């Protein structure tokens, strides 16, 4: 099959949201792109206008590939597509940052993906790039980008209420339907985060309050009790959870050992000096 007909079928199945069918075309298309030197945008002053147009098309194909892999929950593949696309976005002749809404979508999905994986340092590296290379007004007004950045900010501040609100909103109110795909992972990690916070800061807490704090509205009483016992390892007494103060014994013992180790270290250093 030629590249044109493959791409046409890809568009068709993608628009019909038949993601698995669409994904089947991608490997063959990628091979064609490599053959025509379109997978990596190497441009210079001699690059013709036609070649730029071709590159723009291959950017579009890669974007579709990224969306498909996200929808199929193939995150490793999505990361791969993102890396390809980054090269296209860095080239001002191919991508117009001011007008291209796709860039914001792809970037916000990638940022969200990093958050869901707990890759905070990568998240911030990307953010540094976004904030400093894109026009300021684009970053400020991009509704897609605002979602992951707000999420991270609230997560860091501990303002979890805002995060529940972000996701409690109706699916259609999310800027991008794909954001919903990360909900499960994010909420799970959020719950375990909150659970650790609670166990550190309360001596005891009734189950009702725990239900409120962890946002376990969809769970029945029995489900919550097993969750408490199994997932967090807390013990339940008459509807109240008591958090055991963490035992700090053994610290004393190792302290002595450490002092001895340190002093011996100093002694050998002095030896070398004298």
């Amino acid at each position, binding site marked *: 099959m030629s590249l044109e007909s493959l791409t046409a079928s890809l568009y068709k199945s993608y628009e019909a949201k038949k993601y698995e069918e669409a994904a089947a075309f991608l490997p063959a298309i990628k091979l064609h792109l490599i053959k025509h030197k379109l997978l990596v945008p190497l441009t210079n002053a001699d690059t013709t206008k036609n070649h730029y147009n071709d590159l723009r098309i291959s950017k579009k194909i890669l974007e579709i590939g990224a969306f498909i892999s996200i929808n199929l929950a193939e995150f490793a593949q999505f990361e791969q597509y993102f890396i390809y696309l980054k090269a296209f976005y860095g080239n001002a002749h191919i991508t117009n940052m001011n007008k291209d809404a796709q860039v914001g979508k792809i970037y916000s999905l990638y940022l969200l993906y990093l958050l869901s994986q707990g890759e905070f340092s990568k998240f911030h590296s990307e953010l540094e790039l976004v904030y*400093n290379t894109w026009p300021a007004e684009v970053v400020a007004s991009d509704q897609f980008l605002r979602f992951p950045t707000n999420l991270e900010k609230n997560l860091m501040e501990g303002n979890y209420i805002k995060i529940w609100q972000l996701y409690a909103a109706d699916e259609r109110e999310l800027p991008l339907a794909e954001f919903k795909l990360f909900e499960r992972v994010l909420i799970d990690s959020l719950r375990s985060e909150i659970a650790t916070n609670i166990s550190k800061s*309360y001596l005891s807490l009734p189950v009702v309050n725990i239900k409120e704090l962890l946002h376990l509205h969809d769970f029945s009483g029995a489900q919550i009790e097993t969750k408490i016992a199994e997932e967090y390892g807390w013990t339940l007494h008459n509807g109240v959870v008591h958090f055991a103060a963490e035992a700090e014994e053994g610290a004393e013992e190792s302290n002595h050992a450490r002092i001895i180790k340190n002093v011996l270290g100093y002694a050998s250093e002095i030896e070398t000096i004298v």
Partner: protein
Amino acid sequence: MTRTNTTEITNSLVLVAKSANSFDNRYVSKAFRDLGALRRRLTAPALAAVVARTYPVGATKTYLAAVVGEGDVDMEAEEASEPLPEVDAYVHLLVQLYLLDTGALAALDAFNVHVVAQLRAHNRRTLDLIAAKIWFYVARTYELRRDFVSVRPALQTALRTATLRHDDETRAALITLLLRNYLLTHDVEQAANLVGKLEFPEALASNALVARYFYYLARIHAVQLDYSRAHEYVTAAMRKAPQSVQTVGFQQAATKLNVVIELLMGDIPEARTFTADAALERSLAPYLTVTRAVRLGDLQLFEECVAQHAATFQRDATHNLVMRLRQNVIKTGIRIISLSYSKISLRDICIKLQLDSEESTEYIVAKAIRDGVIDATIDVQGFMASKEIVDVYATTQPQAAFDARIKFCNLVHNDMVKAMRYPTSTNRVDLKAHLEASDKESQLLKALQDGDLDDGFF
């Protein structure tokens, strides 16, 4: 004027030649020390005269004379022999500087190609220091032309060559240049990858380069949320950098970064940091206001201050880091409340800190307790009760701090021992000659003490 200028250049060339003949790079360092002053007074006629005197008739002479723009150089003036590669490189460096300072960027760009080809032809360790400097100006040319990407392959190839030749000075210079290039395009990921795969010749490179390298490392780690490592590197950078008038730019940049990192770690920088040095005081003013806001835990003041100085922070590339301080402002607010009240309702905290709601206050306080910002508990009725403040001296903290200091002192001592130079034993035979030599030596060392971070980088 031209005459003294020419003499100065010739003197430097003598030093350079001496270092080439004696295999001792310190003479080049001495020449570099005068370079800063010499650079400001470089003139085309002086350069042309030097070119005429140094090179024999040939392609190089004609080319250099053409670049300097004094076509009517007396081509037959003196019969010079082919100069040493070191001297040749040094003259090229001077021409580079002249072109850079006169703003002839296009000419400089063309000239750079010629210089790099020239450098590649020689593999001599006495060339290292000069080569490192030349590469610096090559990269600087691209930077001034706002062309960050196309210089990368050249730098990378040169880095490979330098590594294979054990050319440590050039290697260190190229690594810092690549890092600088990546950070200028804000590609932190790429810079981190480079650092992860390379070994920086820390013990062998000159201090100025090590200081720069540490500064870039600090920036990378700060972006990647590794504040304690970033803090280590930025303090190391500030200590390594020579403290002279020419390095004010570097000191400013490093101090700014240090202030932000300290704040992010939850420390408040000392007031002395902002006022100690008159040269730094004015440029640090925005950072002082941010510090005040964080110290008071005042969210409103913080927002105002960030909005007001946004442009400055953008220019210093610290904007994103400063934005992250918002959570620290809240945490300090909670800490201050926890210190002043033994028991307070979440509702009051919410009002005092201007947070959105009582529920979010509960989450935020719980997180603060977990992060170890405060030592307190929350009870079911919605009160935060602070635990008794323990005597710090009853804990192991002072011991740990003392241990850290002893370790640092030992490290300094060991580094000093490693850095010492011992005279070769053959010199001892002739005591008189030795004394004379040591006299010269001490002069040279004195000259070197100030370092050479003088190239207008910042």
